[in-house]
């Protein structure tokens, strides 16, 4: 049997090493990874996916740890995908989310994988959806996805997970920060973590005021106060995510959301494929160098150069 087929067989039998290896293959975009995704994709669609995002140091990993324990306590199996940034200079990475999740590693029903962002800018990595698909196909009932420490604009998670939890902490800015466009808009559940610190109630009231300004929605994000490291408020968070799940299923929104997600994924993969085609073409690389020099010398503008590079007529 081919190495790929053997891995798939072991995967279907529940071999966790096969799962780990296929995640690596998918992440590296190898033929083995692609073949596995093709063969196993029919097994996906069973898992619930919950994204956890927020600024660096907000407590995402600690919260994910407690969340996973709460899910296990009610008998659900858990997959965790935790993304940390790659260096823009060396492409290396320190993946440190396990430090806050040490107690999970004694439970074989939890599978946790650290991913480096590998240059992706939205707070996840390009392969995150593939990794989620593999955990889903493996039978994990709930998949928690922890993003890179996100600032204001890393909103990719909202198009990736069914439920997005935004973790805030007191003392990180005034209400104008919360009014800005971007990450505040994508939350399905708002968390105020470190709620034992001064300013927590002020933050809650600011978030509440902000929510009151949102146009009428069928789902109003609840605000959950918690102290993740002391496991205070986790049950309320789990309940809030359950409510959102019920809303998604009852409203029929789940299907629409899935189609949006898949459309976005196909477009992204298509774009990457087209670009790779241009870059792999040796002639394309040489022409790119020529165009770079022409633009740098001021002979050409970047828009015309791009049109020429992809082989289009420059717009008149």
């Amino acid at each position: 049997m081919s190495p790929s087929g053997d891995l798939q067989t072991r995967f279907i039998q529940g071999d966790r090493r096969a799962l780990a290896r296929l995640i690596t293959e998918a992440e590296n975009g190898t033929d083995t990874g692609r073949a596995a995704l093709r063969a196993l994709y029919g097994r996906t669609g069973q898992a619930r996916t919950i994204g956890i995002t927020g600024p660096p140091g907000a407590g995402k990993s600690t919260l994910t740890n407690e969340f996973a324990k709460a899910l296990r306590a009610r008998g659900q199996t858990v997959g965790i995908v935790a993304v940390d940034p790659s260096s823009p200079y060396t492409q290396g990475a320190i993946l440190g989310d396990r430090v806050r999740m040490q107690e999970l590693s004694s439970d074989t029903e939890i599978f946790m994988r650290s991913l480096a962002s590998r240059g992706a800018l939205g707070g996840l990595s390009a392969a995150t959806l593939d990794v989620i698909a593999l955990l889903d196909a493996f039978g994990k009932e709930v998949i928690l996805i922890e993003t890179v420490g996100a600032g204001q604009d890393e909103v990719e998670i909202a198009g990736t997970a069914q439920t997005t939890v935004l973790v805030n902490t007191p003392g990180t800015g005034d209400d104008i920060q919360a009014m800005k466009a971007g990450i505040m808009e994508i939350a399905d559940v708002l968390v105020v973590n470190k709620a034992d610190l001064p300013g927590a109630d002020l933050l809650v009231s600011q978030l509440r005021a902000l929510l009151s300004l949102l146009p009428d929605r069928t789902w109003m994000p609840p605000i959950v106060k918690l102290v993740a490291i002391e496991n205070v408020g986790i049950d309320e968070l789990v309940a809030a995510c359950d409510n959102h799940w019920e809303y998604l299923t009852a409203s029929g929104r789940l299907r629409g959301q899935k189609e949006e997600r898949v459309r976005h994924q196909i477009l992204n993969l298509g774009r990457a494929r087209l670009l790779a085609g241009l870059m792999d073409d040796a002639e394309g690389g040489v022409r790119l160098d020529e165009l770079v020099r022409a633009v740098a010398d001021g002979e050409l503008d970047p828009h015309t150069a791009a049109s020429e590079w992809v082989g289009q007529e420059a717009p008149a």
Partner: protein
Amino acid sequence: MTERKIRVLVAKPGLDGHDRGAKVVARALRDAGMEVIYTGIRQTPAMIAEAALQEDVDVVGLSILSGAHLELFPAVIEACRERGITPDSTIFFCGGIIPQEDVAAMEQIGFRAVFGPGANTNDIVKFLRERVGAPV
């Protein structure tokens, strides 16, 4: 997309909390373009083996300063073996306070290299690049 990244688990078994060395090595490997999963301190052999399994690493690096390496390191190797991760398929290396007379014992159970105090991080990077044999 298709480039092969070297993934390294850096772990600290046992009860000593001296993680400066492990962090310096983790940082050096990061700067060499590798993806380093850092577990934190006070790991049991089972925890390290689970992390190695789930993260599908090419390399496992252990750091210890408590003197318990003769007890703990074989236990880590054994816990990894139970999960199908062997020194044949995965590169194990270690560092910390490991007396010269114990180095042979470490190599005997599967560690390919022992880096003690004063080791140059460039040597560690070079060693791993050669052994994993992946383009960086």
